[in-house]
């Protein structure tokens, strides 16, 4: 009980212990769900984009419940930039690789020379790869959008 009081005193205006605790509990599940949406996009609604947004939303939730600095401990500005680059690069790179390996642009079957899965399975697998790229890019960019807008460009405590 005393611990609780101490913690409550540490809180800044606009922050609430219940929300903080709840979101700490929730965020792993949200992220798990986001991953599930990305990976399971072949079989159910969703895909890289929706999953990425959900992953990004988990950071938004962190930033809202605590403050922005806190959420940036999990993914720094630099990392997010790197991830955004990587995500987009995965997609464009895959496309270009297909062209380089003798197919047409984004012709995933051409990557069969790398790992022989069969042309049709490669279609499926290629979609998976690019979905992961989309997911990464969307996640980090959604987080960046919120951080920058939420802190008016200063990347500090935020709202």
């Amino acid at each position: 009980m005393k611990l609780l009081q101490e913690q409550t005193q540490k809180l800044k205006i606009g922050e609430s212990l219940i929300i903080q605790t709840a979101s700490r509990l929730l965020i792993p599940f949200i992220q798990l769900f986001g991953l599930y949406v990305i990976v399971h996009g072949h079989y159910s609604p969703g895909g890289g984009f929706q999953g990425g947004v959900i992953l990004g939303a988990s950071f938004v939730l962190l930033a809202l419940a605590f403050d922005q600095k806190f959420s940036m401990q999990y993914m720094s500005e630099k990392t997010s930039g790197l991830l955004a680059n990587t995500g987009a690069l995965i997609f464009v790179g895959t496309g270009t690789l297909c062209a380089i390996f003798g197919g047409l642009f984004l012709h995933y079957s051409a990557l069969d020379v790398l790992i022989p899965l069969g042309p049709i399975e490669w279609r499926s697998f290629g979609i998976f790869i690019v979905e992961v790229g989309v997911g990464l890019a969307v996640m980090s960019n959604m987080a960046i959008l919120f951080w920058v807008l939420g802190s008016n460009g200063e990347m500090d405590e935020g709202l």
Partner: protein
Amino acid sequence: MIWILDLLILSLLVICAIAAINIKDLLSATIIFGVYSFLMCLLWAEMGAVDVAFTEATVGAGISTVLFIAAILHTSRRSKD
């Protein structure tokens, strides 16, 4: 029967849209816009576009609204029109 539900949502949509652009308090307008997005998402799910509905739920009602709120909190809530 489904088209009655359709009509209901559609008329709510129009009401929300008009409200969103006419309310003087921008924060409320944004929230109403969020509601509008949710209704839209409902409509699309009902039309069989589950992926679009999913996306609209996360983006239109989620991220977009949050971004709007973030921007409005840094600027001003009032609006002349």
